[in-house]
């Protein structure tokens, strides 16, 4: 197998996930996720995008094939170390309801045994980074708006400054305005932090706005890998179906956002 020398943060090599007695959820996926960029997994419900994400932090292990994280087979990583190497933010946020904002964001530093002064400093820093007012630190999740909860979720995922960030439809439950606001902010944040981001969504606009690359998934396999510009022009029928579903067919470069520097990938 050898040591991977590519600049990929995560590499899938024919990885499949087929639970016993269940459907094939991920079908021999081969994919390289380049370091420092955002890759969007785009697909409809049940296309395997969340399962693919869970293979990356070993919430699930592939039933065939393998994947490498930082050049090392994922199954050689200690799952706890692997997960702390990757931030994780999900749609239902999963904030701890009995913890204040401050303790939610500081949970990983706390279990890592940081001194409390340093945890408090880090929490303040992260709250400022994701645009949360410091006065919210003592609030409970139920006392926050949906958008604020999502910001807390992102801050919590960033707490240990992980080089990789996994995000599963983090803005999925928000109203359109708040959603657009957070998408824009997250795009700017990502440019500043330069992390490797894997972002799951079924929303084409979100995919084109945030992704340097868009991996299109359909019933468990990779149906195409595009830059946003390529996605808008490819004759591939599935991509075309997405474009027409999102009303992007005759807009061309109209208001469909294009990622700057798009043109990598293949």
């Amino acid at each position, binding site marked *: 197998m050898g040591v991977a020398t590519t600049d990929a943060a995560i590499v899938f090599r024919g990885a499949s996930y087929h639970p016993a007695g269940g459907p094939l959820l991920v079908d021999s996926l081969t994919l390289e996720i380049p370091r420092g960029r955002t890759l969007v997994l785009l697909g409809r419900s049940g296309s395997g995008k969340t399962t693919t994400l*869970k293979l990356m*932090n070993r*919430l699930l292990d592939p039933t065939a094939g393998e994947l490498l994280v930082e050049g090392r087979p994922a199954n050689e990583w200690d*799952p*706890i*170390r*692997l*997960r*702390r190497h990757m*931030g*994780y933010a*999900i749609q*239902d*946020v*999963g*904030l*701890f*309801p*009995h913890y204040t904002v401050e303790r939610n964001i500081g*949970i*990983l530093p706390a*279990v890592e045994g940081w001194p409390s002064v340093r945890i408090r400093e880090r929490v303040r820093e992260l709250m400022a980074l994701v645009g949360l007012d410091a006065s919210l630190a003592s609030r409970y999740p139920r006392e926050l708006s949906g958008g604020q909860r999502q910001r807390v*979720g992102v801050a*919590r*995922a960033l707490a240990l400054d992980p080089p990789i960030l*996994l995000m599963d439809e983090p803005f999925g439950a928000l109203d359109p305005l708040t959603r657009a606001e957070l998408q824009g902010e997250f795009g700017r944040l990502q440019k500043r932090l330069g992390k490797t981001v894997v972002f799951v969504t079924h929303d084409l606009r979100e995919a084109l706005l945030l992704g340097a690359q868009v991996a299109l998934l359909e019933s468990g396999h990779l149906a195409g890998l595009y830059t946003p510009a390529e996605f808008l022009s490819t004759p591939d029928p599935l991509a075309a179906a997405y474009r027409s579903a999102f009303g992007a067919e005759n807009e061309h470069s109209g208001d469909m956002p294009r990622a700057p520097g798009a043109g990598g990938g293949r």
Partner: protein
Amino acid sequence: MNLLDYLIAHPHEVLTLSLEHISLAGLSVGIAIVVGLPLGVAIARRPALARIVLGTVNSIHVVPSLALFGFLFAVPWIGDRAPRMAVLALSLYTLLPILRNVCAGISGVDPAVVEAGRGLGLTAGQLLMRVELPLALGVIVAGIRVAVVLAIGITTIAAAIGAGGLGELIFRGLAMVNDSLIFAGALPAALLALLADSSLGWLEGRLRERV
């Protein structure tokens, strides 16, 4: 106030028997918690195992409490002393509400919260101590509340095998057809149950409203 005659005439005996009652019931529930908490945690995420364990513990309740006290005479060491038998029988009875609520409390924690915790990289122990148990605590205390009230009630029957407690006054009053003696045992037992129920109910409410 004929009913309170005995209470007033023998305050010391009523107090001693009340304390005995409290220690029998308290020790039993204590043992049930020590056994039920880890066992409940262990079966909470294993539905098949949970069915077997809960079914087994549930079947203890089929045995009438008076008979259960009697059966324990044959058990070595335990059968030598009446309070030992009483505590074992009461622990077995009160295990069910505790076990059931630990199990229900933990499996009732929002799966998104547990998944987020796992995905962030919390170990199973950290997830249990920092997330699952605190979030299940209201439900667990509700189970302890049921167990305590149950234990205070059944402890009165333990007097039948000579384990002591307020049941002694009740059984004596029954034998002597003496109402005030029966009430001298029943009234403090009822008050203890009410007190335990309301204070644990208050605690449960406090714990649940945080979630």
